[in-house]
């Protein structure tokens, strides 16, 4: 039956949960609040509302250069890790080869390993291979480390998929190649979008691996990092607020996509007798 258990009141637990939410959100709210504070970071209560820090931020050339760099790296990482992640997920799902168990663990390792280990390993590899550190090495690092995210997400998508659909396609005379493009890939659309958004965000935010692979041009997090070393300015609050806003926008886009997908699925269910 569809009936669910009645929710019993638990006032203490509710209060505790509210406190945890406060703990999680308070720093973010403080950060946003002080980006509009004329007198800078700190000082309570904040007074003298201003957009000055945003004005200063928009005139700040190096920040926007680093944003562009980050966007390039993130876009490249999405393409690279989605492609390789899709193949890896397909391989894990349907091929057998020696060392498969090792391969599975290795692919997923950057997901659970502290970033410094992966970052340093890649640094040593770059030096070993006589590759100059640059945005390109950062892109290679992100793309490789984030294959783990794509593989996890797409493998889950493949597992959920009805294998009979592909069998039906082959049965109806489609070649494996056609089946891949017409059945397998469309089925993975939502997983691809989810993985893509996640990889994009993670790459935009990545700092531990980037730290060791960066050349002369900074990504946004490293640019911020550099300024943090020099001291706190509300300009960083402003840029953080913008990053937060973009993250939230991305989440909203993702839920729109997902609920549309779910809506379509529900529609199908209703229409099937």
């Amino acid at each position, binding site marked *: 039956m569809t009936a669910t*258990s009645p929710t019993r009141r638990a006032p203490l637990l509710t209060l505790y949960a509210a406190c*945890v939410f406060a703990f999680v959100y308070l720093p973010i709210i403080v950060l946003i609040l002080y980006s509009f504070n004329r007198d800078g970071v700190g000082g309570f209560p904040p007074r003298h509302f201003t957009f000055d820090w945003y004005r200063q931020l928009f005139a700040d050339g190096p920040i926007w250069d680093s944003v562009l760099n980050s966007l390039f790296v993130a876009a490249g990482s999405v393409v690279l890790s989605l492609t390789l992640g899709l193949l890896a997920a397909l391989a894990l799902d349907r091929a057998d080869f020696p060392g498969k168990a090792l391969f599975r663990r290795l692919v997923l390792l950057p997901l659970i390993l502290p970033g*410094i280990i992966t970052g340093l390993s890649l640094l040593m590899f770059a030096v070993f291979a006589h590759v100059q550190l640059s945005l390109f090495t950062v892109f290679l690092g992100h793309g490789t480390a984030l294959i783990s995210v794509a593989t996890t997400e797409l493998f889950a998508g493949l597992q959920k998929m009805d294998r009979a659909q592909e069998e039906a396609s082959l049965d109806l005379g489609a070649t494996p190649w056609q089946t891949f493009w017409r059945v397998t890939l469309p089925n993975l659309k939502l997983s691809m979008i989810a993985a893509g958004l996640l990889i994009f965000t993670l790459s935009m935010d990545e700092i*531990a691996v980037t730290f060791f692979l960066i050349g002369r041009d900074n990504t946004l997090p490293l640019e911020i990092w550099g300024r943090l070393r020099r001291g706190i300015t509300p300009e960083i609050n402003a840029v953080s607020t913008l990053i*937060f806003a973009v993250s939230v926008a991305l989440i909203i886009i993702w839920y729109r996509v997902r609920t549309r997908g779910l809506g379509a699925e529900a529609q199908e269910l209703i229409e099937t007798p």
Partner: protein
Amino acid sequence: MFSRAYKTLVSLPPLLWVGLFLLLPYALMFAHSFWAVKDGLLVHQWNLDNYHTLFAKPVYIEVLLRTMRIAASVTFCSLLLGYPLAYYLSFHSGGRKELLYQLVVVPLWVSYLVRGYAWKTILGSEGVLNSFLQYLHLTHEPVSFLLYSPFAVVLMLTHIYTPFVFLPIYAALEHIPRPLVEASQDLGASSTQTFLRVILPLSLPGLIAGATFAFVLSLGDFLAPLLVGGASGTMIANVVQSLFGAAYDWPLGAAISVCILFVVISLLFLTERLEKRWSFK
């Protein structure tokens, strides 16, 4: 149903890529840990000196132990915050469940650096918290122990990993079939008994997964100590980072990294077995 060509086509590129850009770099790190530096130059001379230094000098062991203490505190605090939150959402949030879930997930998408920076502005001696306390006349002098201490590192990392710990626990709780909870009540168990005897044991795999995640990632963190930790909050990864930077002793840094890797992998191995033992599907 998939041809040999299909399987080869999908397996070969990721295998080669992962072999070249993951396996080889990790192997290089392992190799480095047995090499040496002479006169500021790396020499490929196989030896165990790095490991010997590591265990002979108490400073490394000390930092490693402190790091593990910090990581354990972060894990404990994240569980303390994350588990009740997940339990509340899964069992007591009623119709607001979906919305609250999104609220927990949103901070996951918010930059690590941004969140660390936020704590820096809050905890600093001229920060938000201190000026707030002075505003209320609770203190007259800035409280200085807040920032640049292991406490600040634990606080910042707990803030970052609480949502991470929440996720697997919440997933595990959501997967507990509700009839089991009803069956427990039906058999005469009170809410507390039901929690201790049914819900907690069945959510253990999620709890372990979350705890492992928080512990392992805190263990290798070097940014939080740099941001808010100060000298007393230095962690093992900071040592590695300085060995690869200013101190220029890559082999020793690699040896420490290998040790971290060893700890992490044995932990993963252990928890994977525990999760298997405690999952009953």
